[in-house]
C-alpha cells in the first residue's frame, strides 16, 4: 500500500508538471512584432517608396486575434515599415470593444475593422440598416467616428460576410445558385449555424423574414465546426464566411449561395485610427494603407487565409508573400 501511494504521488507530480508546462507553452504563443520589409523602395511600378521624413514616427498597428485580422495587421505593418515608419504591432486584441478602446487611449495607432461590425457594434445600427454598398457603409461609419475624433480610411475591395453554404452535391441536386433558389426546398433541408444565428436578423431570422424561408431544422454549433457538419453530411446547409479558405482550397467541394436579397451586410474592412495620430504620421500613413489594400479582393484574401489556416504559415509569412507578389515590397 505504502509503495503504491508513493508511486501515485510521483505520477501526480509528473502530471502536474506536465499541465504547468502546457499552460506556459500556450501562454507563450503570442505572435511577435514584425519588422521585416525592405528599407529602400526600388522604383518598380507600385513599390512602396521609403520616405526619410517618416523615420521619426513610431506606429503601433493592432488587429483582433484571428487569422484574417492578423494577416491584415501584418500587411499594414510591413507596408508602413517599407514606407519608412518605425512600426510595432499588437495583433492579439480580443474583441472590437477592446480594439477601439486601445485606439482611443493611444495604445495602438489603428487597426482594421469590418464596416458592418463598426456600425452595429459601436454605433448601434440594426444589421438591416447597414448599407449594402461598401462606400456608403464606410461614409456612414466615418461620420460617426469623426464625432469621436476618430477616422476611418476607405474600405478594402473584399467584404467579409456570413453566407449560406452547402456542398456542391447538394447545390447540384436541388439546383441552388442563390438563396432565393431555396424557396420550396428549404423545408427539406437542415441549416447549421453559430448559436446566435437563430435570433439574428442578419442570419436565420433574416432568412426567414426577407426570403420567407422555413428550414427543416436549425441546429446551433460552434463556429469552428461549420465545415465539419457539411463534410459529415449532418448539415444540408451551413452558415459560412465569404473569406473562408476552404472556399478557395476546396472549391469543388463547397459553394456559397448568392445573397440576392442582401440579408448579410457587407463587411468591407476600414482602417480605424485617431485623427491626431493620422495628422502626426503624415500623408504616407493613409496613402500606404490604401495602396496595399487595393489588391485585396475576395480571392486573394481567401488564399491568404488558406496559407495560414490550412498550410499553417504564420500571418507574417502570408503577408510578406502577398506584398512581394503584388510588387509593393521586394
Amino acid at each position, binding site marked *: 500500500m505504502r509503495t*503504491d501511494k508513493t*508511486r*501515485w504521488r510521483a*505520477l*501526480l507530480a509528473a*502530471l502536474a508538471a506536465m*499541465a504547468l508546462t502546457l499552460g506556459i507553452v500556450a501562454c507563450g504563443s503570442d505572435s511577435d512584432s514584425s519588422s521585416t520589409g525592405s528599407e529602400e523602395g526600388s522604383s518598380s511600378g507600385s513599390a512602396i517608396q521609403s520616405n526619410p521624413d517618416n523615420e521619426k514616427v513610431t506606429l503601433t498597428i493592432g488587429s483582433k486575434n484571428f487569422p484574417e485580422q492578423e494577416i491584415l495587421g501584418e500587411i499594414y505593418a510591413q507596408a508602413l515599415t517599407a514606407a519608412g515608419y518605425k512600426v510595432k504591432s499588437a495583433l492579439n486584441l480580443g474583441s472590437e*470593444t477592446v480594439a*477601439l478602446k486601445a485606439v482611443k487611449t493611444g495604445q495602438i495607432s489603428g487597426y482594421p475593422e469590418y464596416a458592418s461590425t463598426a456600425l*452595429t457594434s*459601436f*454605433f*448601434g445600427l*440594426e*444589421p*438591416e440598416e447597414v448599407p449594402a454598398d461598401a462606400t456608403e457603409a464606410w461614409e456612414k461609419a466615418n461620420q*460617426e467616428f469623426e464625432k469621436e475624433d476618430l477616422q476611418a480610411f476607405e474600405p478594402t475591395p473584399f467584404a467579409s460576410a456570413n453566407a449560406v453554404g452547402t456542398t456542391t452535391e447538394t447545390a447540384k441536386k436541388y439546383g441552388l445558385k442563390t438563396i432565393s433558389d431555396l424557396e420550396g426546398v428549404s423545408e427539406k433541408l437542415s441549416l*447549421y449555424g453559430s*448559436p*446566435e444565428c437563430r*435570433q*439574428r*436578423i*442578419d442570419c436565420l*431570422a*433574416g432568412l426567414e*423574414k426577407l426570403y420567407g424561408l422555413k428550414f427543416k431544422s436549425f*441546429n*446551433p*454549433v*460552434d463556429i*469552428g*465546426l461549420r465545415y*465539419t*457538419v457539411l463534410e*459529415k453530411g*449532418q448539415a444540408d446547409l451551413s452558415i459560412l464566411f465569404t473569406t473562408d479558405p476552404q472556399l478557395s482550397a476546396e472549391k469543388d467541394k463547397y459553394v456559397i449561395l448568392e445573397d440576392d436579397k442582401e440579408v448579410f451586410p457587407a463587411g468591407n474592412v476600414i482602417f480605424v485610427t485617431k485623427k491626431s495620430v493620422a495628422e502626426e504620421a503624415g500623408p504616407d500613413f493613409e496613402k500606404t494603407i490604401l495602396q496595399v489594400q487595393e489588391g485585396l479582393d475576395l480571392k486573394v484574401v481567401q488564399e491568404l487565409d488558406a496559407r495560414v489556416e490550412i498550410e499553417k504559415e504564420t500571418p507574417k509569412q502570408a503577408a510578406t508573400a502577398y506584398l512581394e507578389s503584388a510588387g509593393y515590397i521586394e
Partner: protein
Amino acid sequence: MTAALPLASFTGAFEFIFTPQDSNVTGGKKVGGFDKSLELLVKHLEVTLLALAIALVIALPLGLYLGHRGKGEQFAIGLGNAGRAIPELAVIALVAVLIGVGLANVAPVLAILGIPPILTNAYVGVRQVDRSTVDAARGMGMSEMAIIRKVELPIAVPTVMGGIRSGAIAILATATIAPLAGVETLGDFILNRNVYGENGLLAGAILVALLALTIEGLLALLQRRLTSDGLKLKTV
C-alpha cells in the same frame, strides 16, 4: 460607443426571465421571456439527467466492484483525477468529428465529467467499510454480491452519494456549452451576449445556479432517505 450595452442588473435579469425583451440584432423580434426560459431549463435538465445516467451506469458498478475487491486503487483514483482534467469543449469538438453534433454527442461527453467523482467516491466509500464487518458477513455465508448489496453499499451511502452530487453539479454546470454542439440549453442565454445582452447572460447564470441548488437539495434529501438510521448523526 454611443450605444454601449447597459450593465447587467438583477432587476434586468429577472425581467428578462419573465417577460420577452428587445434586442438590437433580431430585427424587432423580442428575446427571452418565461416560455423560452422554461423551454431551455427543461432541455438543460434533460441533458444533465441523461449524462448523469450514463455516468452512473458506467462508474457506480465499477467503483463498487473495485472497492469490494480492494484492487485497482491507482486505476480508480487515477482515472478519477485524470478525468477532471479533460477540457469538455475540446472533447465536444473532437466527438463532433467522430459522431457529429446533437444529444448523442453532448450527453456522453458530459458524462465524462460525472464519472470521476462517482467512481472515486464509490471506490473509497466501499474501501473504508470496516473489514471485520465484511468478514463477519462472509462468515455468515453471504455471497460476495450480497456483501456488496447488503453490507458495503448501505454503509458507503453517504460517500457514494457525495460523489453523485458533485458529479451531477459538474455536469449541470458544464451543460451550458451544449449549444455549441447542437443542443440548446440555458447556455444559449450565456453564450449569445450579442443577442441577449448582459441581462440575458446574468439571467442564464441565475437559472443555472437555481437549478444546481435544486438538484443538490433533492439529492441531499435522497441521500438522507437512503442512509440507514444507524449511520445518521443523532440530533439528541
